[in-house]
């Protein structure tokens, strides 16, 4: 009787040990899973930001040739990466209507040669200015993706009207969601 009772107790102990062991291992795996999931979730916002950055990079490489920006045939033959300064100034006025059109947070064009400083372009000082802010949603933005463009306009002297193109940088920034 005593021997059977002892054997049962030992067996129970063994089962208890096994249960504790299984619980510990399960807990360990659960903890690992939770840790992994928390990292994945924290990276989700970063991934969203990266996707937006990629989108802005793709956009900046084709934006200059879109109808809203491109020179078309206004300066002789059709040119690539050519932005019509007059179109930009008109677009700047209507920027609010285009706020969600491109799906990005900020678009600006900076004249880099000749250096006109950082004077913002308005109807009053056009074309003697350096930065044309097309769109600004006033949110936190990522580093801008940029592309070189030629910014062209019609100029008038006493004797003639001629085409003048300057070197500019088209900059596009996506919203920083991280």
């Amino acid at each position: 009787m005593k021997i059977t009772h002892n054997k049962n107790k030992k067996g129970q102990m063994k089962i208890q040990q096994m249960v504790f062991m299984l619980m510990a291992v399960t807990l360990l795996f659960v903890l690992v899973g939770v840790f992994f999931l928390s990292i994945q979730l924290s990276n989700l916002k970063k991934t969203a930001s990266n996707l937006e950055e990629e989108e802005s990079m793709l956009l900046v490489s084709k934006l200059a040739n879109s109808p809203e920006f491109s020179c078309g045939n206004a300066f002789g033959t059709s040119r690539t990466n050519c932005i019509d300064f007059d179109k930009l100034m008109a677009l700047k006025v209507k920027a609010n209507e285009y706020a969600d059109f491109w799906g990005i947070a900020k678009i600006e064009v900076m004249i880099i040669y000749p250096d006109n400083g950082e004077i913002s372009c308005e109807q009053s000082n056009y074309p003697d200015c350096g930065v044309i802010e097309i769109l600004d949603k006033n949110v936190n933005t990522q580093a801008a993706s940029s592309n070189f463009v030629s910014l062209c306009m019609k100029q008038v002297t006493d004797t003639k009207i001629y085409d003048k193109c300057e070197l500019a940088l088209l900059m596009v920034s996506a919203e920083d969601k991280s």
Partner: protein
Amino acid sequence: MRLRGVYKKGQEEMVGFIVIVVMVSIILLVLLGFMLKSSSTETVEDYEVESFIGAMLQYTSNCEADLEFLSVQDLIVECHTGSSCLDGEKSCDVLNSTLKDLIKSGWNVNDQSAVKGYSFEVTAGDTSIFSLQAGNKTSDYKGAYQDFSKRSSTYVVSLDVYY
């Protein structure tokens, strides 16, 4: 003797537990390694170099011809033929100063900048019309070229940007 057997079993179980912990740790480390492997962002993009050449060729210079101010592309052709601007200045002199200023404005070379150096050249066939190098030539670079033909000559404008 019996006690020794119990200790031995306990030791075996501990070893088993440690093996599981080590295995889980290795899996965790591998996963972390994959996650922390950040994609390196390139500082200079292909399209930037290509677009720079295109935009630069369209730039309107100070060299006035009969009807208009010449673009850099036209100025390259005028320089090759050895002609002068309306104000008497040699087209090659205007081309040299314009190209230098344009390239310096576009690519800022210094230790803090992403751009470590560049190599720019304009050729007409085998003849070099203009060349400019600055900074260091590193193993990482992005390059582009654009060619055009005018007055039976083919001109090639090439730019390599080192980062």
